[in-house]
């Protein structure tokens, strides 16, 4: 899959995460999180895993995390990719 247009999924409410994706030549991942000190690695792993499963190699991904659990991060990532991506 490939990210072909700007898209977003999720919210800024507590326990949720807002994921924005946009097309780019390289893969860039930006993460802001209220639990960065405790869970930064876990958040990054979840995002990278969803990207790998969708075989996305480029795009700008930004996540504003409000303490979302792993399953919520994965859901929002999948939704953002679905909305902004296209089968290449």
């Amino acid at each position, binding site marked *: 899959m490939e990210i072909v247009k700007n898209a977003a999924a999720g919210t800024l*409410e507590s*326990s*949720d995460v807002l994921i924005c994706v946009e097309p780019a030549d390289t893969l860039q991942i930006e993460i802001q999180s209220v639990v960065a000190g405790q869970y930064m690695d876990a958040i990054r792993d979840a995002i990278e895993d969803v990207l790998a499963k969708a075989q996305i190699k480029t795009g700008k991904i930004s996540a504003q995390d409000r303490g*979302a*659990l792993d*399953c*919520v991060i*994965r*859901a929002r990532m999948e939704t953002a990719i*679905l909305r902004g991506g296209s089968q290449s």
Partner: protein
Amino acid sequence: MRRTMLFLPGNTPNMLINGDTLGADSIIYDLEDAVSPDEKDAARILVRNTLKYMRGKGCEIIIRINPIESDYWQADLEEVIPCKPDLIMPTKVGSGQDVQIVAEAITALEKRAGIPEGSVGILPLIETALGVEKAFDIASASPRVAGIFLGGEDLTADLHCKRTREGQEIFYSRCRLVCAARACGVEAYDTPFTDVEDMLGLEKDTQLAKSLGFSGKAVISPRHVETVNALFSPTMEEIEYAHDVMDAIEEGRRQGKGVISLRGKMIDAPIVKRATQVLEMERQMFGGEDV
């Protein structure tokens, strides 16, 4: 045992994740009315991911999908069936055929996902005049049907009447639904009481539902869970009596008696059946670790 079934909005992470802690016997993840059209995709993906996470938490999960007249219901099923929710609740069901359409879609998806056919049950939501009149057809449409469910809000709109606290306007529908369900050997569940603050009204409404033969009731607020649970639970006296019935049968068997009586009353099949139900509820209420 489904004394209470708690509705939770399908696109709200905090609610989905904590749904199992709110005391309800079952939770209903709602993909229909609680989710706006432009968030349907997000909600079903979130529900699917949450289902995986909720597995093994020991709380029954029901998914309310969009009506089969909508563009969403198939995508709803495709997303959630592979995660094997306990029950699917199709909405605005008006005929046995509606149930069969959903059942066939589930069968196909079960096959594709490699899960045993029939794993996922159906709990049709009856909320139209047509649905009420076809309640028997709906309840008997598929072996997947575990029970039928009355939705009072949409129904009263369809009946051209106002939904009231006393519920006279849905009395016929309630009776009809219970009768149809019992005739088919499935359960009947009652519509939620929608005034979150009116605890006395809730109590009366629940007592009425129980007296008519419903097995449980939907709730839209966690505040209502304990009241409804309590009213649909057997009392301590009923539990003790059920134990006495079973003890008497055991004793009678040992003595080789044909006719067994307890407190001067013969124990017949309906009494045994009722006692078995009560003891099963007791086991589910207090038997597990999480009660």
